[in-house]
Every structure is written in structure tokens, then in C-alpha cells.
């Protein structure tokens, strides 16, 4: 098509999804509850609260932290967070010198088991286009001001490795237990577009 002239409008997306589901049903390809189970799994198992727990544990337990940085998937599995496939999870440690941030420029790959299904902003063309080219300016616009002396390392999820950021533990959380610490770790911090802050 050389231009948008005289094209019939598309059927609404909700109708198209319904149409495909019904066509597959009619062919007997949809076992009872199969779709419902997948949705339930997505809503219950793929949750940034998992990554928050991992982070809180790493803040409290230096040996766990070392295991996490050595093998992210195995250390997450210790807490019961297992990826569907045998995933290669690399955990990126933020320090005073380096801030890490994750993107998938070509689609929207994410470590579902610890970060959850990615949010709209992560999947947007805006984020995908800009963060590899102007991370400092973009993070600033998103509310994260990084001192000039902090290097930014952007990780493009172009392969099969999945990434999670291990944010820095904020001051003012001394003596907090794991649950309380996990409560302040956001999805945005696990991706690297925000710091963890004590309320």
C-alpha cells in the first residue's frame, strides 16, 4: 500500500482477539482453562515483588549477594522464583561509580520471573529509542538525576540473557528486616530508571 487512501478500517482489536480465540476453540485446540491458567500465572507469578525480595535478601546477606551476582537464576530460585525456561539471569550491581539500566530496543524482553511482565513505558518506542542514546537526559526527565561522576551503563537485552538491576540500599534503612526492605524496592528500581528511597 503506497498510502492510507481508501482502506477499510480494521476490525477493533478486541474483536480480532475474540475471533482468533473462537477460531482456535472451534478447531478443538484450546484445552479447558488453558488460557485462564496462563493469565493467572502472569498475574500471580510474574511480579516485581519477587525481584524486590531478592534485592532485600542481597542487602541483608552478603553471601546471598555473592551467589546472586555469580548466578542470578540459581539465587532467585532459592527464594522460589524460577523462570519458565532455564533462563540465564545476570544481576547488575549499582555502585557509587556505576549506574545500570536495562532496555530491550528491538522488542521488550524482560526477566519476567523477577521483574514481572514489563510495564507500558518500558515497551514504548520512546524508551526503546532514547535510553541507549541519551540515558542521562532521559533518566533525568524520568526523575532520576545522576551526578556527572556516576557512569551509566545501559544493557540492551538483544540476546537471551535476562538482566535485573541490584539497586543501592538507601540510607535510613538500618535495622530494617527483609520484608520491610522489599516493600520499598520498585519495579522501576529493578530496571534502573529509579533509585530506591526510604520513605
Amino acid at each position, binding site marked *: 500500500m503506497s498510502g492510507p487512501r481508501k482502506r477499510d478500517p480494521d476490525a477493533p482489536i478486541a474483536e480480532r482477539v475474540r475471533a482468533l480465540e473462537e477460531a482456535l476453540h472451534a478447531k478443538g485446540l484450546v484445552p479447558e482453562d488453558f488460557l485462564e491458567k*496462563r493469565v493467572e500465572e502472569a498475574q500471580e507469578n510474574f511480579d516485581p515483588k519477587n525481584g524486590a525480595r531478592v534485592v532485600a535478601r542481597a542487602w541483608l546477606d552478603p553471601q546471598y549477594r555473592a551467589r546472586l551476582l555469580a548466578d542470578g537464576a540459581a539465587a532467585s530460585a532459592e527464594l522460589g522464583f524460577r523462570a519458565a525456561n532455564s533462563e540465564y539471569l545476570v544481576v547488575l550491581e549499582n555502585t557509587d561509580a556505576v549506574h545500570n539500566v536495562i532496555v530491550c530496543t528491538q522488542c521488550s524482553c524482560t526477566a519476567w520471573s523477577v521483574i514481572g511482565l514489563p510495564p507500558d*513505558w518500558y515497551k514504548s518506542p520512546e524508551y526503546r529509542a532514547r535510553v541507549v542514546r541519551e540515558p*542521562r537526559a532521559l533518566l533525568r526527565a524520568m526523575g532520576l538525576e545522576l551526578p*556527572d561522576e556516576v557512569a551509566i551503563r*545501559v544493557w540492551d537485552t538483544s540476546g537471551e540473557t535476562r538482566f535485573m538491576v541490584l539497586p543501592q540500599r538507601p540510607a535510613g534503612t538500618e535495622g530494617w528486616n527483609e520484608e520491610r526492605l522489599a516493600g520499598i524496592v520498585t519495579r522501576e528500581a529493578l530496571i534502573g530508571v529509579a533509585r530506591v528511597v526510604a520513605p
Partner: protein
Amino acid sequence: MDGIHDLGGMSGFGAVEIEPNEPVFHERWEARAFALNMLGIRLIEAYNVHEYRHAVERMDPAHYLAASYYERWFTGVATLLVEKGVVTRAELEARAGGRFPLARPPADVKSVRVTPRAQPRFAAGDTVLVRDIHPAGHTRVPRYVRGRRGVVARVSRAFEVPDLAGHALSAHLEHTYHVEFEARELWTDAAESRETVVVDLWESYLEANR
């Protein structure tokens, strides 16, 4: 393919806005579309995840940018189920009561140059050059690193080469590498300072620095 999906570094886009308390799915159809892909890949095994990614890439560029994430997702699923003969487009249009946009057909990819080594060719610290290639089919080497030099930060595991798997060709494994590029090497005069980008690349995308 050098498609619209390969957005890294493109200018002209606006603000990134975070939705507070964003739900996992905004609409019922999004959840159903999500699950239908699980059905296509895992249950009936009509296609693999590389083919799925490539189907989304093959969408009309205007449709790709206009669509929300799960509309792109769904269009990839529907395209493959039609291409694999599970359903027909006519059937879908009749049931949907209107036009049913699908992605464009894939290029006719018959083979891809891969590296046969079982041992990784590069080691951490090696400087590598990304091959300046323009594959007609699926690939995962973004345009913004092609022809650029970087340093291997980590030798990752071996995974299926997407350029083959995306066309349901042989399941050939190759080592992948986390390659770190200086912003200046990628964006020259437009680079911010003290920044690097790490890209996860298959061995056949790389050559030794000359």
C-alpha cells in the same frame, strides 16, 4: 531485516511516562492475547519464540508504531497461526467482522553464515568489531552497533542463533557475548559522556578487531 522494530538511537520520540499502579493487563483482550501466544508456542508448538519476534518485526511500519504492545504481540501470533495453516485469514476476518491486519511475509531465508566452534572464539577483554551486515530475515544485531567496535565484558552462554531459528531453520547454538561500547563510538558527536551501552551479541555477528 532493518525494520521499524530496530528503534535504538532513533530521535524524534517524546516523553516516557510511567503510569502509577499500572495493572498487568489494561483490557481483557490483552490478557487473552498474552495467553494465546503461550498456546501457540508451548501448547500446540506451531512456532517458536524467535519466529514470534520476527512476525512482530514484519508488521507494516505504520501499524507497528500505531499499535499498543499487545496489539503488536497479537498481530505476531495471528500472523504465524495463519502462515502455519492453523487458521485462515478469511476465517479470522469473517469472525472479526472486518479487516484483520497481519504482518508481511518473511524473506526467503535458506541459510545463514554461522560459526561452527564449540569453544568461544572471544574472551572477556577482547576488542571485537560488529559485522556490518544487513540480513534480509530475522536478526538480533541492532543497526546502531553494526560496524562499531566494543569490548567483550562477559562471555555468556551458547544459545540458538536467532537468524536461523527465526525462520524455523536448524537449531544451531553459538556463544553469545555481552559487548560494551563507548557512547562516543556509537553516537559520535551526539554522545553523552561517561556512558557505555552493553549489547548481547551472537558470535557470528562479531569479528576480531583488525
